[in-house]
Structure formats: structure tokens, C-alpha cells
């Protein structure tokens, strides 16, 4: 870990009833999250890394949730999408190794 890893990453999400479970899941899974409300949207910011877990969202939503559905909620982001698979989405800064 280097000092640059604490550069803030963020997602802005539409503030709707549908997205409440998602926002709560992100809150639960990211300890140092900062939350700001701007009319119509909520800005979630974390130092270095932000993770969205499918299981956490499903638990709060009470139904299955595909990580692709995140596209319905997101307005903008800051950071690289360093992982996006069936189970989770991870945002971070830093150089990514290529396969």
C-alpha cells in the first residue's frame, strides 16, 4: 500500500426508493464512507477503495440482484473499475496489472 491509495474514489447514485438497499449495502461494506446528498442524488466517497457486494445488496433488497443492475443506479464515478464480476464491483485508483 502506498500513500496514493487513499485518493478518494466515489460513486454518485440516484436517490430513489429502488436504490436504498444498494446505498445501505455500500454503507455497511465500506467503513470510511462519506455520504453527501445533492438534490436527486447521493455521493458516496471512500479513501482508496470502494466495494459493492452482491450478497449485501440482495440481503437488504430481499430478492436476487445482478451486479449488471448497478448500471441502473449509477450517475457517475471516480476511480478505476478494478473488478466487476458476478459477486462484486470494486473501485480503486492505482495502476492495474493486465492479464
Amino acid at each position: 500500500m502506498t500513500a496514493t491509495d487513499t485518493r478518494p474514489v466515489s460513486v454518485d447514485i440516484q436517490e430513489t426508493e429502488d436504490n436504498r438497499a444498494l446505498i445501505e449495502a455500500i454503507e455497511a461494506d465500506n467503513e470510511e464512507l462519506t455520504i453527501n446528498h445533492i438534490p436527486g442524488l447521493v455521493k458516496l466517497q471512500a479513501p482508496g477503495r470502494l466495494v459493492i457486494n452482491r450478497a449485501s445488496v440482495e440481503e437488504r433488497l430481499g430478492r436476487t440482484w445482478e451486479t449488471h443492475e448497478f448500471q441502473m443506479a449509477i450517475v457517475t464515478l471516480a476511480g478505476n473499475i478494478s473488478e466487476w464480476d458476478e459477486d462484486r464491483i470494486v473501485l480503486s485508483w492505482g495502476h492495474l496489472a493486465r492479464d
Partner: protein
Amino acid sequence: MTTNPTKPAAKKLSMQQRYSALTRDIDWTPSYVSEEEMYPHTSYEGIKIHDWSKWDDPFRLTVDAYYRYQAEKDKRLYAVLDGFAQGQGHLTLSDPAYLNAMKIFIGGVTPLEYQANRHFAYLSRHFNGPGPRFAALCQSVDEIRHAQTEIHTLSNYNKYYSGMHNFAKMHDRVWYLSVPKSYFDDALSAGPFEFLIAIGFSFEYLLTNLLFVPFMSGASFNGDLPTMTFGFSAQSDESRHMTLGLEAIKFLLEQDEANVPIVQEWVDKWFWRGYRVTAIIAMMLDYMLPRPVMSWKESFELYFEQQMLGGLFPDLAYYGIRPPAGVEQAIWEKDHLSHLVYNTFYQFSHAANITTSVPTQDHQQWLAAAYPDSFDAVYRPKWDKLEKMDAAGNRFFYPGLPQLCQVCQIPMVFPEHGQGDKICERHSDFNGEHFNFCSDHCKWIFDREPEKYVQAWMPVHQIYQGACGGPTIPDVLAWYGYAEGDSGEMVGNVDHVNWKKWHAQVDDSLAGREQMEASLAADGVGVKEAAK
């Protein structure tokens, strides 16, 4: 369940496998023609690509997922549009002046979405690699969706308000709309990789947040639910486009070290080109939202300085890319930009498809709080003077035509870097002709490719050359396709008067008409005059 018990059931493919099946397995190597004949545009810019398969899309988007979610986004939007139109939603806007921002949007931005649709469709044929081709295809379909949904959304306002009825023609002809138009024309006429940096990286990644996020939040705050919804709906695609833009620049930088200086020049050029276009957003945020949400300065700090300079550029430094030339000046200008631009529109709104007015005292107080270092000292006195002239029956409109910058095409109103009271003027001579620029950066862009920028369609020059309908302002405005009420002073304008009439009806009181007349009189508009 399987029909053949000896063969194990096929396991469902993972997201990564499905993406890879889509983007890799349907590609082939041409045998009847050479690769160069098949993809003729990807070598002349000097960019070297060794392995197209290194292109990656973190969204792992496939066709089924793409259309499923896009359809859902549209369904949500059209439900809002219907409800808003049926419920006379336009009457719940904060103020009809708010719609001036939408007039700029439909004339300035929507046609760019359509151009982006066309060019990404072209690129989806012309990149050698299947990864970028598929990403370009999705973006192309996104962009036509944006153009269509924006037109549908604003068509409801067009039934009631002026300034939007002729947006496509206005985009091609109106003086200030040449700013966004020429920006995009510049990108469309560049090579495919430069286009990716211009639109994919600079516009979509560095600057799109400044356009959509605070502004759509402003729409929400000013009662414009349809615009908020299309804005956020479009922006959800935008986060994919941002990812494409970021992928594009990293891909080019990783492929060959010789690409780095080429890309750096494009980053310098396209940051500055894009930043100059966002001057109009600065004005919309600070002056055109009757209930302001976030100042240009605050959005620039949050979405550009913090997220881009603080977050992204340290990553790009790894490849040898530094922040764009011009960044320091843009940071310094954030205290001045919106004030200069709205002041210019105030003086020229007899020739724009929007109306303007001196900001109210409440609004000026908000501006003073948002701009403690510049508003009271520099800009409030200017508004005081214009307000006095207006009160004396001498509403000021600039009687001539402005000198334009040959590159950004904005009137030359910008200050020298660091000197708020001195207008910057730069010049170059080329083939015996003299050209003017608003800044060192626009001059640098011209000097780098003068053969390109001497061909620019400059609105003021075209008027003087007699190419815009005739020699007088009414001739030119007729050629723009303006109708009554499209331009000029906001107070007493047909939209303003209609608004008061409709609200008098909505109030449905016996005193409705009297109230309306009293309210118009308070604004200094006689009812007879208003009925004209």
C-alpha cells in the same frame, strides 16, 4: 436438465467468459484483403498498436444485458414524461426563466449527441480490434438514445415556451451555438484515435460530470423532473463512456511508448477545447437556475480538481502523462468564468435564442457568497450599472458584433491569466491573413494545425460576408429561424407574460386577473404591452 446423460450439463458462462465470447470469438483475420485495406484509418496518426486484444471493458457488457437495461431505463423515463405532461408539470417549474438553460441545452448539446452517434457508429466499423469496436457500437446506440430522449423530453416544453422550436437549424446557424458545434466538428474531422481522446477521454471523462451532474441536480431542484430523469438516465450510460475513455487512453499509452507524446498533445488540446465549451455550463449553473444548487466554482473543485487532478492524473503520471497545459489557468478562471459569460449573453441576448435579465438582489447575494473573492469587487458593480440603465428605460444591448477567437469561437472576453481586469488577446499570421485568439492555449492549438483552423465557419465573419440572410440584425435573426419571444430581455417577454396568465388561471380565484395585472405591473410590464 440435459437430454444426453453421458455429457455433463453445460455450466453457465461467467460474465468474463460471455464478454470474451462476444468480443473475441466473433472476430476473424481477413484473408481476401490485407488488414490495412480493411482498416485504413488506424495508422496515419502515428499511433502504434501491437496487440488489440489488450483492450478490456470493465463493464463486461454483452448484447443481452445491454438491451435489457437500456429498455428499462427508457421505460422509467417515459413514465415520468407522461405523468409530467398529463399533470401540467410545466407549471410547477420554479420559474419560466429556468427554461433558458434548456433552450441552450437542446440547441447546443442534443445535436452533439447525434453527431456522437454517427461517429461512434463509424468507429465501430473501423477499429481493428473487436473490443473497441463493440464498445464504440454500444456508445453509438447510447448516443442516439440520448438525442431522442432529450428531444422527447423537451418537446413538451416546446408546446408552451419559445426558443426551442427550431433547434436543429439554430445549431447550424446561431452565433454562440457555433462554439459547441465547432468543437465537435473539430473532433469528427480528426483521426479515430484523436477522436477517442477528444470525445471519449476529454469530454466524457474529464468534463461530462460538470455538464450533467450538478446541472441535472439543478433541474431536480427547479421542478424539472423530466430533465432530471433524462439527465441521470443519460449519465448512467455516461459512466460506461467514462470507462471507455479511460480505457482508451490507458490502452494507447500501454501499447507503445512512442504514443505518449502524441497522446499528451491531444490531452493538452482537448482539455482546453472542452474547457472553453464548458464556459456555457458555468453560466447555466451560476446565473440560469432560479434556485441555484452548486456554483461552477464548487463543481469544478469537486468534479475536476478533486476527482480528476487529485485522483486520475497521479495514475496517468505512471505512463509519463502530465496534467493538461491550461489547467492552472482554468483553476484561476473559476472565480470569473460564469460572470464574464453571462454578462456577454446579457448584452447579446437580442440575438440569442434565450432571454436574460439582471440577476435579482437575492440571486446576487447567493453569487457573492459563492464567489467571495470576485463577485462584490468586480461583478456586482457591473450589474448595478446595467440595472440602473434598465430602470431608466435604456436596457443595454451591444450594438455591434464581437471579435471571436478563431479556435474556440467565443467572443474575446477572457482575461489574461491572473489579471481579472485585462482582456487577453493573441494573434497569429498565416498565409498573409491575421487571426485572433482568446488565450495562449487557443493560439497554440491554431499554430499546431493552422491549415485546419483557417477553414472555421466564423459566425461574425459570415455575417459580414453576407452569408447569413442579409446586412441587418433582423435579416440575420430571420435567417436563424427566430420567432417572436425567442430572444431579448426576459421581463415582459411572451413566456414571462404567459406564465403569469397561466398561474392566474391555476390560482382560480375571482381576483386572478387583477392579481396577474398587479404582478405584471410590479415587474414594470403593462398588460396592453404584454398582450402584443
